[in-house]
């Protein structure tokens, strides 16, 4: 088994100093809440539990399966940890994994660690939790929804986390948004399928052998309002902001254009008005936002329809 650097771990140098610092602050704030929440609800046995499970996630990331021609799929584990441990513990466990990877293995930078924690341990966990909880709710807690919810949650966590990474890179002026967001999003939409399959396989195995781990209390932890709202906001913002950013030729160039635009506007306001008769309607930004929202609605729609159909079948 070779240690393979993950695409999602951003090394130092690729994020601007400001972006790194802001994301560090955000991550520290969320981690403080997570520590407080887990301290309140969990006993003293949770320290060894979380430490060992963090090691298990790390080792689980090394188990891979060959897809084709030398490429292989492996796990990130945000959704699996969220489903089995609840969101707040999952945030701590994944933060430990990402921190050790940066500190010892140089997989991901130290200054960029705040961003990597944000992407994988916070965005990954909260978006997975949102999707999983919704699907569980809709299915009225039927056992099949553990697997379906697990698959969709795993896919969402990878996809949304990769959008976050791509967005950070383009805000930093490292990668043009119109290339990095479709590229990162596209690759991880595929990687997410692998994540979904492994997560489903793992959940199926655990459900068969240790059904007691899917206790109602665990599920309760994921339905806290704060957790769901945070998940919803993060997921929606990233789903909407990414097409917005990628419809501009380049984050920095866009800013430059805007500045140029303002200068020009100050010089000759009247010359510009004919060109921009109805700002916002004949606008690629708007159409890509709408496309993004429709895409998100479609994904949720399919999940809901499948859930509804299954429920009807179960009722008959």
């Amino acid at each position, binding site marked *: 088994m070779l240690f393979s650097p993950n695409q999602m771990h951003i090394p130092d140098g690729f994020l601007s100093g400001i972006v790194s610092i802001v994301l560090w602050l955000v991550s520290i704030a969320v981690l403080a809440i997570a520590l407080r929440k887990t301290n309140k609800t969990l006993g003293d046995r949770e320290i060894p539990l979380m430490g060992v499970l963090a*090691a298990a996630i790390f080792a689980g990331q090394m188990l891979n399966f060959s897809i084709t021609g030398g490429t292989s799929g492996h796990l990130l584990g945000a959704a699996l940890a969220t489903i089995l441990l609840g969101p707040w513990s999952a945030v701590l466990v994944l933060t430990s994994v990402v921190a*050790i990877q940066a*500190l010892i293995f140089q997989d991901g930078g130290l200054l960029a660690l705040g961003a990597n924690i944000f992407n994988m341990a916070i965005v990954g966990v909260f978006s997975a939790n949102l999707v999983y909880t919704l699907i569980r709710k809709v299915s009225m807690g039927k056992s099949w929804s553990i697997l379906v919810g697990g698959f969709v949650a795993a896919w969402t966590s990878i996809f949304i986390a990769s959008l976050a990474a791509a967005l950070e890179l383009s805000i930093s002026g490292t990668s043009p948004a119109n290339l990095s967001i479709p590229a990162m999003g596209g690759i991880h939409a595929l990687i997410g399928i692998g994540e979904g399959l492994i997560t489903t396989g*793992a959940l199926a195995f655990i459900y068969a052998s240790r059904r007691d781990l899917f206790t109602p209390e665990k599920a309760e932890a994921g339905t806290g309002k704060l957790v769901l709202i945070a998940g919803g906001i993060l997921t929606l913002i990233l789903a909407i902001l990414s097409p917005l950013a990628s419809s501009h030729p380049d984050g920095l160039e866009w800013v430059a254009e805007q500045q140029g635009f303002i200068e020009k506007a100050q010089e000759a306001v009247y010359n510009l008005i004919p060109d921009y008769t109805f700002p916002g309607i004949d606008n690629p930004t708007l159409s890509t936002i709408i496309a993004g929202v429709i895409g998100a609605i479609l994904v949720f729609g399919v999940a809901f329809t499948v859930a509804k159909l299954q429920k009807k079948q179960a009722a008959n």
Partner: protein
Amino acid sequence: MRTHDFYEPRVSVVHQSDARVKVILTLAFILAINLLPPGTWANYLLFLSLIFSAEILSRLGIGYHLKRSLLALPFVLAALPLLFTLPSPYHSIPIFGVNLQISQPGLERFLSIAVRSWISIQAAILLAASTRFPDLMIALRMLKIPPIFVAIISLMWRYLFVIIEEATRLERARSSRSGAAPYGSARPGGRVWWRAKVTGGMVGNLFLRSLERSDRIYAAMLSRGYNGNPPTATIAPLNRQETLTIVLGLLTFLFLLFTGLTLGV
């Protein structure tokens, strides 16, 4: 899996200095170089010479760091489009008979990102290679990282290689019974869905084994008098020389950052 060559024991000034000094200076070093504007080549060069001298002082040598720093290289692809998307002046560069239009600010920014990343990762490698894990944890505690968190990370590290061995055994069992291709280009067994499901089952298995292991570990900790608070040794305060090293290091980085920000190239 290279398990034990992350820490490289040497008798050197760098290895012997306090982990807290190293952690603070490494973080400050990386922060400073990442705050430098692109194209401040003189300052990049000075930062590079600083890290090179530290590498020589550590007796690990520059070559060792160069080899390990290749890890972050593939990520440079993410910044490559800058060469073509940033504004003019463009330079036409013939490559394989094709004239590529490369933007000068784009090239400047791309090289800056690559150099910045390369210097940063060398600092991180030096820290990991010259500091023992327990010392690193003490340094983290001094940096006000919550003790519970440090305890989780320490326990993770303590059992990481045990569980990696467990995972290796699972993988060896799979290779010997199903799913592995006998040689590079051969088709592996089963369909890709099936292989994914098997891997999922293995991950689930690993998870359950780890869960059971954590129960045993907890029992063992209780038997040694664990009461919910991770035992923490008292840490000696930094002595005058160590404080002086930190202050001098920070001043150097600040000076290099300041000149980079104000004087430009």
